[in-house]
């Protein structure tokens, strides 16, 4: 129901350098360069799916999101969301989608969120009974209470995001685009929002597309991830498959009840953390069973946990690898050019 084929988005930007001379020169002539924010992306997302867009900063994630929501016109390629072409910005299309951006809000600043709800109700043409019903559900799920009657500027960031999310769902969109929705929020608020977003997807069957740098967001919400780097797709599939592909090792966290020489630990696997009484070993997936039995036999183990590698590490590993690949490519190309 979301289908993207060979999407490209290129910009022309002015080049600007620091320094007095460069500033004066720029009054008369300004070189431009082409930025390929998105450079050939394909994917399909079925209705009701939850997908995370991951990638380093400037990778093209937000650009892709904006193309999907009709805010940006693609340079080339075919995009279809629920059978509509987003760039045509048909009313029927706009009434079924919504965009939520962390740190930026659509709530009217000096007035209570309730006023923004009312405004959205009118703009999206939601009937009064439906509106009241939806509001009640949102109020229960997000525990808004009196917040909606206080001017937005008096709310804390977390309270604002809750109301922002409520305002976004007044018209019950079928596709929800979320751009870093939990950025800057405290941990408990992040958990509340994540739980709510997941529930919305499960109860209404809405499709969710989320971009985030927070791996807890991704882990909690996105069974499928699309990794975008430098405008190109570098992975599209289940999150677990990504982890297995990039960092197939598992971690063994051992609590030790007695002094243990390092040599004994290094024998079992790669030591990634070492504290008195505690060690974390990294072992290949297929070695896990074997290593556990050896550890229990050879070491004074009082507690044992098996974990996957932290997602942050998986991601930075992935980005580092693709960067190295690209550098290799450009080095090869440079070498050919020099010839």
């Amino acid at each position, binding site marked *: 129901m979301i289908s993207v084929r060979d999407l490209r988005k290129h910009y022309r930007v002015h080049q*600007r350098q620091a*320094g*007095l001379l460069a*500033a*004066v020169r*720029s*009054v008369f002539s300004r070189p431009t360069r082409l930025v390929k924010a998105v450079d050939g992306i394909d994917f399909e997302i079925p209705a009701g799916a939850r997908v995370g867009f991951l990638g380093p900063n400037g990778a093209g994630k937000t650009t892709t999101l904006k193309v999907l929501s009709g805010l940006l016109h693609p340079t080339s390629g075919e995009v279809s969301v629920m059978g509509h072409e987003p760039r045509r910005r048909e009313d029927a299309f706009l009434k079924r989608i919504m965009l939520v951006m962390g740190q930026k809000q659509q709530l009217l600043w000096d007035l209570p969120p309730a006023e923004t709800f009312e405004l959205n109700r009118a703009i999206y043409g939601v009937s009064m009974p439906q509106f009241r019903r939806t509001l009640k559900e949102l109020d229960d799920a997000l525990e808004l209470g009196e917040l909606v009657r206080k001017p937005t500027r008096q709310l804390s960031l977390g309270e604002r995001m809750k109301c922002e999310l409520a305002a976004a769902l007044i018209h019950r969109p079928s596709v929800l685009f979320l751009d870093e929705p939990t950025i800057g929020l405290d941990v408990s608020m992040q958990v509340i929002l994540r739980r709510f977003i997941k529930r919305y997807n499960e109860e209404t069957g809405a499709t969710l597309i989320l971009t985030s740098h927070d791996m807890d967001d991704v882990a909690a919400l996105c069974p499928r991830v699309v990794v975008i780097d430098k405008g190109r797709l570098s992975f599209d599939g289940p999150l677990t498959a990504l982890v297995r592909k990039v960092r197939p090792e598992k971690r063994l966290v051992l609590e030790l009840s007695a002094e243990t020489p390092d040599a004994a630990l290094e024998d079992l696997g790669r030591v990634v953390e070492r504290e008195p009484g505690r060690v974390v070993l990294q072992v290949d997936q297929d070695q896990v069973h074997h290593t556990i039995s050896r550890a229990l036999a050879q070491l004074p183990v009082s507690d044992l946990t098996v974990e996957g590698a932290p997602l942050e590490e998986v991601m930075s590993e992935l980005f580092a690898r693709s960067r190295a690949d690209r550098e290799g490519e450009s080095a090869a190309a440079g070498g050919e050019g020099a010839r």
Partner: protein
Amino acid sequence: MSFRSGLRATPTIYKVAFSEAIAYRAEMIVWALSSSMPFVMLAMWSAVAADGPVGRFTAAGFGAYFLCTFIVRQLTGAWVAWQMNFEVRTGVMSMRLLRPVHPIWHFGVENAAYLPMRIAVSLPIAVILLVVLGRDAVSSSTLMWGMWLLAVVGAWWINFLASAAVGTLSLYMEQSIRVMDVWFLLYSLFSGYLIPVELFPGWIRPAIEWLPFRFIIDVPVQIMTGAVTVEEGAQLLLGQWTWVGVFLAVTLLLWKSGLKRFGAYGG
């Protein structure tokens, strides 16, 4: 000490602000266009003078007057009031207060960094003035031009300090923008920008001549068009620099107590 480090940082502050001033070409054009008011007034007053001189002004006299007004306005413009208001509202002012440079000095240097660009804009106008209206349109005495330089510097100081005083009001109240609008209205009316001060009727003119506004545009223009004698010019300069002193004191005082209030409310 804040003063010394401020002084040391000044050349760099100037350079950076200058780069900023010329960074956006479209803005420079927009901004030059928006100072076009004198030309509108020139058209208007020329129409009035079509049937005979108004006061001592013939149509050519108005031409000289308003072209000079444009030039002087370019050289003495200050917008620090709006800048301050913006920075207080967006929280950038707090960052400025953390720096070891007195903010008013900082603003002043930034403001002055726009002068080269403004001079570049007024140069063609000055050329037009001389070519179209002839050398008689402006004074030919070197002493006068020396006084003119002093008058322009004084005018710049009054305008800047007054603008800074109004801007300081944003430390006290949120709606200081309205006050700025009123200030600007009074300024355009009584400084000679829209109407030569001497054309105001006799009973109100003395009041206007005491107000600081006329020392910003009217005095430098009078000097450069040779409309006053050396003695009169000297007297006007004295009055002008007295006002500079007054505004210096007022602005710094307002700033000091404004800061206390700003700090008390957390900005």
